[in-house]
């Protein structure tokens, strides 16, 4: 019937992401060291307090050392005026590349984007747009990532686990660009593969209010929708407030949490049994793919259409491979490191 067909399709999707990821070359081999010579890069994260971004930038700095690219982080507390300052710093000091990594919306610093373009500074965005979203025209290049697919996996995970009877509460932050495609992915998964599933509530909480609003909102939602069996905090940093909400409303065991990003403390949550599943991405991989893409642009080669970092599901069965306590780069294997070395023509 329709229900079991849907569950079968969902299971197929999930199985695909439980396999250890494999490296696919983003393009032709090229001499990255020659391209990077004398170049500098300034990475501006959305906020330096975000461990996901911090992890990527730390790896970018390390990878930069390997290939001779000087990478620097523009530390900030998430205030747009600080991003403006970072952009201007890059322009004033003739930095070759500005890396808007996963969060700073180029539209918010438009005057600076223009100035950078005029000054010959290459501004790239990485891990920010969904492939379906048009990038800012002033960008020198864009490495999108499919947030839709993350949503799609999350939706199918619930179908797979509940045998087609998922009843979910989604926690989201509409103000960040990736939210829309990600939530769309969840909706589409349920629509296509599960006639009986439903979303009881979608709770929209601004990032600055996660600490105060997520926990009470989730509690209220669980109490007012007693049949709910999944809470999906779409970004896993939200789960620290969802976990106590589930416990305090006495729904431990009945309500499960699935999320995405692979942040280490959430992997620890999985090991402790508080969270069921987290969709992970290797931060080191993202760092390498990002630098690879930018360098291709500078070398005059075509940039890949997507960042190309595979998703990998962590749950109780494999979370120990990420380390105890979990680390951001463990558990994904390491053939990609060798893969990039080969593509970059490094001995």
């Amino acid at each position: 019937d329709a229900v079991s067909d849907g569950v079968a399709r969902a299971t197929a999707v999930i199985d695909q992401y439980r396999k250890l990821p494999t490296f696919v070359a983003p393009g032709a081999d090229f001499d990255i060291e020659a391209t990077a010579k004398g170049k500098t890069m300034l990475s501006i994260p959305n906020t330096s307090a975000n461990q996901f971004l911090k992890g990527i930038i730390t790896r970018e700095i390390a990878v930069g050392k390997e290939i001779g690219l000087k990478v620097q982080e523009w530390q900030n507390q998430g205030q747009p005026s600080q991003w403006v300052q970072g952009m201007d710093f890059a322009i004033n000091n003739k930095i070759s590349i500005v890396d808007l990594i996963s969060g700073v919306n180029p539209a918010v610093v438009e005057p600076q984007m223009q100035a950078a373009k005029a000054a010959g500074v290459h501004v790239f965005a990485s891990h920010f747009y969904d492939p379906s979203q048009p990038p800012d025209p002033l960008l020198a290049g864009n490495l999108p990532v499919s947030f839709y697919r993350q949503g799609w996996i999350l939706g199918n995970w619930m179908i797979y686990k509940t045998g087609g009877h998922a009843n979910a509460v989604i926690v989201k932050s509409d103000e960040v660009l990736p939210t829309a495609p990600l939530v769309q992915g969840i909706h589409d998964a349920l629509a296509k593969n599960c006639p009986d599933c439903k979303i009881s509530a979608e709770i929209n909480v601004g990032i600055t209010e996660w600490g105060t609003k997520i926990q009470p909102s989730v509690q209220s939602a669980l109490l007012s929708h007693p049949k709910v069996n999944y809470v999906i905090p779409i970004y896993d940093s939200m789960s620290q407030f969802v976990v106590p909400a589930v416990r305090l409303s006495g729904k431990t065991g009945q309500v499960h949490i699935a999320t995405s990003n692979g942040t280490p403390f959430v992997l620890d949550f999985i090991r402790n049994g508080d969270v069921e599943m987290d969709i992970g991405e290797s931060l080191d991989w993202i760092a390498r793919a990002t630098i690879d893409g930018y360098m291709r642009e500078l070398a005059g080669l075509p940039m890949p259409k997507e960042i190309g970092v595979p998703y990998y599901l962590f749950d109780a069965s494999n979370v120990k491979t990420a380390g105890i306590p979990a680390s951001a780069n463990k558990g994904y294997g390491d053939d990609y490191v060798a893969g990039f070395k080969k593509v970059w023509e490094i001995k």
Partner: protein
Amino acid sequence: MAEPRFHLGLFVERFALVGAWLLTIIVFSIVLPGVFLTWGNFSVLFATQAPGAVLALALIIPLTAGDYDLSVGATLTLSAVIIGVLNAVLQWPVALAIPVSLAAGLAMGLINAFFIVYVRIPSLVVTLGSASVAAGLVQWISNSSTISGISPALIGVIGHRFLGISLVFYYVLALACIIWIVFEYTGLGRSILFVGRSREVARLSGLNVDWIRAACLVVSSLLAALGGVAYAGLLGAADPFSGLNYLLPAFAAAYLGATAILPGRFNALGALIAVYFLATGITGLTMLGIPIWVTSVFNGGALIVAVTVSQFARGREETDIV
């Protein structure tokens, strides 16, 4: 002397907040039948607001003595994160981690007291500064990330349920009663009030103003640290940001509470009621599925409206709290 008699204005003033709370409960019970007015809902409400209630109670102590303490939010976070790092990361037993986090609270209090009382810098400035320093330290020791895996022993002591409500709520209740009794029925409490209302007169009356102010600041930091312990135990994790988010609501509750029960004076019962009044409204609104922004409007609106009602009950007199 005439015995104090029943006085309608005063009664309205004292119990306007309680009335507002009951009204909120009634309205939501009607709008959300079978969902809102349940033991489950209220037990969750009582437990989760406990850290915020502790902050509000911590605040009223220096406020009564005439000092602001803006650092309580940061101190709560610092204490929670210290427990997280020591217990979950370094694997210390909870019984050792808690004293260290209380010591951190003590240190915050002493630093605040030194600069406010000895160097004589306005309390707003000092605690603004020390909150910023503490927030920095928190980010450093927590590496800006949430630390999970705090020992079930602590979670048990804080979150274990009695009559369906986590123990932490009873602790908060006990704390409020103690503060109430100290303020209303002990010499120390009255001394604090005198110091807060007129430092000069208090000194002329032979009170050791400096020591009293310092003690209030230290106690408020210690309570905030205790709030951090409660927070860590409630969540089983410590996150480096949310203590600050409790700060403004706690201030609102302290001031709102000062319009109730003993109007015109910061008081523990009023503050407690204010915390739960605001939380009840927000819970009801979220259960209705109303967008989150409405809760901000409710928070601010309820604060102003409740104080306005009590102001009109007292004929719009100037209040003594500032």
